[in-house]
């Protein structure tokens, strides 16, 4: 039966199909045969008729028919007749519109049937049709959609696919290429996501396509790894946040927000993501950007506060956000001073950068020296022997502290800890740890060290070196000296500084808890460890074999004696010497006796413990006493575990460094001849010293790192390191003093200052936003100044005269005062007359001379932006043109004369007039004797505000400055705010009573990033206004002068109640400027 219906249908349609290429017929037959067993004859018949109908729809619709028939042979078993029929109907509709579309639809249909099931076939067909817009490109996009169906529906449900289509459709409106690329990668991209995250992924994509479609490609390419940075349970919520941000309009692209936030979350502990995203979601209703910025800020913020403190910070920001979106956004961008302040208040950790100045003054107070404070990291970077980036130390002039302190849960304790660190280092300086003199006796211990001096080839470079040279085991000696000296220092600190005692004791107790178990150590190590404990006030924690108690007891007695108030560093050295003798008498072996025999030890009486004057009891024989070293068959001695708050103590290195510095300064007069140091000597010294671990400093061969180290050390000490040791015979001091400075290249020294910037939208400052780079302006031609004077000779004379008239009398007589130097005769007579007449006369009948001091300081701020390059004549050209319209000959002669004039003297630019006016003003100022500074500013971007010093307040007008004037040239942009702030700073350094800031510009403030975009003016104007206000608050009178004819509109806002003037006729600037200044100060 099936066979018969097949043959029947074949025969029936034979004729219709014969007109088409052969594959049509072949596929028809194959399809019929495949379906014959699954469909009823009537269904089969309907199927065949639909196919035949397809062929007739258009010229190329037969191709669709081929695919239709081929699909018939390929339907999966679950294909129902309904589905097959639907496909047919959809295919007919499509073929009517676009045969190729139908072709790809039909070609994908069997696969799709398998992927989404027969029930969804129509919906699928519809999705593709939505992409079809009647043109070729859309048709191929829709075709592509059908083609990817099998892969796509492996990862998407049909409902989700419709969302994808919305996205692709949106994207296609902008770019078919992009849409096609995204569609092609969609299955693979989506496959990498968790099922729940796919829809949010598409949602965000859709939003992206609407606002910044070009980023979709990036998103598809890079989005997945970014999303994977977010905790898997939260990715959906994160994407929805990103989608909300994409819905708004903002400067930054939504993708950028997404990428930054995802990267930021990647740096945050995934366990905190829940809390972080929850807090971000609270912000989103007010500003989705703030929410994204909040996420982006997380790594920075969470570095400073704990996750449980985060909400407090977020809430504070939320309140600002509710009041003002701009303010809140700036807050969460961390571009607001308030955000910083609140963060700082919440944070329990102490940052050295914030307390450094306080600690510097503190240490200066303690030591009486000009110490500076730096991070321990910077010391390690110097490569001069210190390697640990986190331990406190000092090199005798600078105290190095860890950058952060966060060992306690609250700020006070952390600061106290930092202070204990600083105090210990300062105490090393204050109590003379680095003042060791080999020949000076101590105050407590008898001097015995001389007995151990051995013959040496050359005298020791430093006293510390001479001391350590006494010991065969230098490491042991160094450790013992460190313990002794630290014990002495701690005792002195406790004695002198009662207030810090509590914190110091606490730190000591903490350190004691961290000490390794002493019973496990070989004996000599245990001995040293016990000394460490005792030095930390841990006498009760000393454990020692009972049968050896005497040695330990003596050692503890020595340590106690050293803690007497009068002890000096020389005493510490003597103590170290005595301890060394005891230490080497103890074999470094494990005592096999059972641990129960270890017991506490009481220190011996100081007097008893004190070694005898003559020599040590051990190896002393005759005058040449000997100190022992490590014995045979012992375990290697290991230095005790470090003590945190005491940091790195390197007396030998510091001693050397001080010596080098002294040498570099040429030694002090009257002191003994400073010994020149040869590099060989240094190298030998360093090789010996146990304080420097050259291997740890740099990998690589030892010689190279030694060389590097030496040159670093020389540099640190201010001595130029010699290349080939040619200074061997010469004193280093000769080499270093003069030439060091002479060789300095003539590059201007740039000092960087940081200033906040006012964000009027956020109504808050952006902290440390602008970097102002101050440098002296280069010197130019020396003729300019005189030339300008000559050119304006008349004006100069006039100005000078005007200003001379202003020259104040030193005293001015003021009359009618209630008290004064003498009677004012007129008033006195009046008084007498009235008195006689019985009236009640005024008592004000004295006069006095009041000193009128003219005490003015003025800072001139000259705009050196590129716009000042404009030629002045150009501005006026249109007037000229009109005049000569009728008479070409007249025009020609004018033109010729103009050309000639231009050749002899080039056309003047705005800047030239600014310069000339400045010259005139300077003569005026010199006449009147006001303090003045002349500065130029320009720059590009907030990190690069250039501030040129032409004449600083404390410089006097000389040729150098005249030459600098010539170099005033147009450079770049006009970021006025920071320039004004810096000029304010300069003015505040003067002690004049009247301070004036005179701003000379040619247009509105403008710079890259000085406002939301290039065209925005408000931001720059508001910041400038704020800067001027700040100056006013400091008691400075600001005055703005512009040559921009359009200046009135913005100057009105910028200067509100301050003085300003627009000089419309720029040629009059040279005469106008001095006049204005005179008026301002009269």
């Amino acid at each position: 039966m099936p066979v018969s219906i097949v043959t029947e249908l074949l025969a029936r349609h034979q004729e219709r199909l014969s007109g088409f290429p052969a594959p049509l017929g072949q596929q028809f037959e194959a399809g019929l045969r495949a379906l014959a067993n699954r469909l009823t004859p009537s269904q089969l018949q309907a199927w065949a008729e639909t196919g035949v109908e397809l062929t007739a729809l258009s010229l190329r619709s037969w191709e669709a028919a081929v695919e239709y028939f081929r699909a018939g042979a390929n339907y999966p078993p679950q294909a129902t007749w309904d589905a097959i029929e639907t496909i047919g109907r959809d295919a007919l509709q499509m073929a009517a519109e676009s045969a190729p579309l139908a072709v790809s639809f039909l070609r994908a249909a069997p696969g799709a049937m398998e992927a989404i099931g027969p029930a969804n076939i129509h919906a699928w067909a519809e999705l593709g049709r939505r992409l079809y817009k009647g043109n070729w490109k859309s048709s191929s996009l829709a075709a592509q959609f059908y083609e990817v169906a099998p892969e796509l529906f492996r990862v998407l449900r049909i409902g989700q696919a419709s969302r994808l289509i919305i996205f692709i459709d949106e994207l296609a409106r902008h770019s078919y290429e992009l849409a096609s690329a995204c569609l092609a990668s969609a299955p693979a991209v989506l496959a990498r996501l968790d099922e729940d995250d796919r829809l949010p992924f598409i949602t965000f994509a859709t939003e992206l396509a609407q606002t910044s479609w070009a980023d979709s490609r990036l998103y598809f390419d890079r989005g997945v790894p970014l999303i994977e940075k977010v905790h898997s349970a939260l990715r959906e919520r994160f994407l929805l946040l990103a989608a909300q941000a994409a819905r708004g309009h903002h400067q930054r692209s939504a993708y950028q927000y997404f990428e930054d936030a995802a990267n930021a979350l990647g740096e945050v502990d995934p366990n905190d993501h829940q809390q972080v995203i929850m807090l971000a979601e609270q912000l989103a209703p007010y500003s989705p950007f703030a929410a994204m910025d909040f996420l982006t800020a997380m790594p920075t913020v969470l570095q400073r506060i704990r996750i449980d403190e985060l909400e407090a910070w977020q809430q504070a920001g939320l309140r600002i956000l509710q009041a003002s979106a701009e303010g809140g956004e700036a807050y969460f961008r961390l571009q607001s001073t308030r955000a910083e302040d609140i963060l700082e208040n919440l944070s329990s950790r102490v940052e050295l950068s914030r307390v450094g100045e306080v600690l510097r003054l503190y240490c200066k107070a303690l030591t009486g020296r000009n110490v500076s404070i730096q991070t321990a990291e910077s010391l390690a970077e110097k490569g001069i022997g210190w390697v640990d980036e986190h331990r406190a130390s000092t090199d005798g002039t600078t105290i190095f502290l860890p950058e952060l302190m966060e060992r306690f849960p609250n700020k006070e304790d952390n600061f106290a800890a930092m202070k204990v660190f600083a105090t210990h280092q300062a105490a090393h300086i204050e109590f003379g740890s680095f003042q060791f003199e080999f020949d000076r006796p101590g105050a407590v211990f008898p001097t015995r060290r001389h007995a151990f001096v051995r013959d040496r080839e050359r005298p020791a470079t430093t006293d510390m070196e001479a001391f350590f040279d006494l010991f065969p085991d230098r490491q042991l000696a160094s450790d013992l000296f460190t313990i002794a000296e630290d014990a002495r220092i701690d005792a002195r600190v406790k004695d002198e500084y009662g207030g810090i005692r509590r914190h110091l004791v606490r730190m000591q107790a903490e350190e004691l808890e961290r000490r390794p178990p002493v019973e496990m150590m070989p004996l000599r190590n245990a001995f040293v460890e016990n000394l460490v404990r005792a030095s930390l006030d841990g006498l009760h924690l000393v454990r020692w074999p009972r049968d050896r108690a005497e040695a330990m007891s003596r050692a503890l007695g020595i340590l106690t004696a050293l803690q007497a108030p009068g002890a000096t560093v020389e005493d510490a050295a003597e103590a170290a010497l005595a301890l060394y003798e005891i230490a080497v008498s103890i074999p470094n072996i494990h005592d096999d006796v059972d641990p129960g025999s270890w017991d506490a030890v009481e220190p011996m009486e100081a007097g008893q413990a004190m070694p005898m004057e003559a020599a040590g009891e051990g190896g002393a024989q005759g005058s040449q006493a000997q100190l022992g070293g490590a014995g045979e068959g012992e375990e290697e001695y290991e230095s005790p575990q470090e003590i945190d708050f005491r940091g790195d103590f390197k007396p030998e290195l510091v001693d050397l460094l001080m010596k080098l510095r002294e040498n570099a300064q040429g030694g002090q007069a009257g002191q003994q001849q400073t010994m020149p140091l040869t590099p060989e000597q240094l190298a030998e010294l360093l090789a010996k010293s146990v304080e420097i671990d050259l291997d740890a400093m740099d990998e690589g061969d030892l010689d190279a790192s030694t060389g590097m180290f030496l040159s670093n050390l020389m540099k640190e000490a201010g001595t130029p390191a010699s290349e080939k040791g040619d200074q061997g015979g010469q004193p280093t001091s000769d080499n270093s003093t003069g030439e060091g400075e002479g060789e300095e290249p003539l590059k201007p020294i740039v000092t960087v200052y940081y200033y906040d910037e006012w964000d009027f939208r956020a109504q808050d400052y952006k902290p440390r936003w602008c970097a102002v780079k101050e440098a002296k302006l280069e010197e130019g031609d020396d003729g300019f100044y005189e030339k300008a004077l000559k050119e304006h000779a008349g004006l100069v004379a006039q100005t000078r005269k005007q200003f001379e008239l202003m020259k104040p009398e030193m005293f001015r007589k003021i009359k009618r005062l209630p008290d004064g130097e003498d009677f004012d005769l007129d008033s006195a007579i009046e008084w007498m007359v009235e008195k006689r007449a019985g009236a009640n006369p005024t008592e004000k009948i004295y006069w006095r001379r009041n000193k009128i001091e003219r005490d003015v300081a003025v800072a001139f701020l000259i705009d050196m932006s590129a716009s000042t390059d404009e030629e002045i004549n150009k501005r006026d050209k249109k007037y000229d043109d009109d005049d000569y319209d009728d008479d070409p000959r007249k025009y020609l002669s004018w033109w010729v004369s103009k050309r000639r004039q231009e050749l002899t003297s080039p056309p003047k630019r705005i800047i030239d007039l600014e310069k000339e006016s400045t010259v005139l003003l300077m003569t005026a100022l010199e006449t009147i004797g006001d303090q003045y500074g002349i500065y130029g500013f320009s720059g590009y971007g907030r990190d690069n505000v250039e501030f040129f010093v032409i004449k600083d307040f404390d410089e006097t007008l000389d040729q150098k400055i005249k030459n600098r004037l010539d170099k005033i040239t147009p450079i770049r942009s006009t970021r006025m705010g920071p320039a004004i702030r810096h000029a304010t700073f300069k003015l505040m350094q003067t002690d004049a009573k009247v301070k004036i800031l005179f701003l000379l510009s040619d247009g509105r403030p403008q710079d890259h990033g000085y406002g939301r975009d290039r065209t925005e003016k408000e931001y720059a104007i508001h910041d400038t206004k704020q800067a001027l206000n700040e100056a006013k608050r400091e008691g400075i009178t600001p005055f703005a002068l512009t040559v921009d004819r359009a200046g009135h509109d913005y100057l009105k806002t910028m200067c509100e109640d301050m003085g300003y003037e627009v000089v419309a006729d720029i040629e009059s600037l040279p005469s106008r400027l001095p006049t204005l200044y005179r008026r301002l100060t009269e």
Partner: protein
Amino acid sequence: MAENGSVQGATIYAVEEYSVHEEPYYLPIGDEVQLFETAYRQRIPVLLKGPTGAGKTRFVEYMAYRLGRPMMKVSSRTGEEVEHRMPLITVACHEDLTASDLVGRYLLDTDGTRWVDGPLTRAVKVGAICYLDEVVEARKDTTVLIHPLTDYRRLLPIEKLGQVIEAADGFLLVISYNPGYQSALKDLKHSTRQRFIAIEFNYPPRDAEAQIIAHESGCDDRTAMDLARLGEKVRNLKEHGLGEGVSTRLLVYAGRLIAQGIPARRACQVAITWALTDDSEVQRSIEEVVTSIFE
């Protein structure tokens, strides 16, 4: 007119009649007492140099007391023999102090004008020690008066009266100035300063200062020592945040507060930290020194 009187507990003296009655506490640091005595005997004017609160004024008072102590016999107007004390006239100079403020002026009276001697004139007449504190602050015209008084002439010209007064035998001019904070403008002119011998005052060494603090404030020795230590530390900050180091006077104030039961840290805060500076960073630094020294 110069009657000693008492109004509501305060004792009123005419300027030339004030003298130091009780021995002021003064702890000599060096040979300044001997120097001053010798200078006085020789009538050589003295310039006291030193920072504020270092004890210059106290020193002058102490010397006035010492020099008056031998009870010089002087016949007063009544002819009685009275115990003579060295009168001490102190003038704090300020920038509006003119020559006539020192010499005297006509004042209005019911019937016309009346001449009133200024403090310097009075000192010259009675032979007192005239102490011009912070002399550089005064106007330059005062030097016209100082010069003839400080050389061999010992004359005070009174221009308005057309008189010249020869100084009484006991008269000595003592001036003080603080080289620390005055600007270059207000430096003492050489023609002036080379008429004086100069005694330099500085803050006393720690132990001596502790002794002074303990005596003046009545606090215990330990506290006095800590205060002296604090003083030394804070003075290290001079010119690096502080214009002037903390004076002994302030340390004494702090000691007095502590002696009366104010907690040490608080006492130092009000008497030292806040008194010294308004710069919050420097305040904080001083506070840290205070909390390091005091519990």
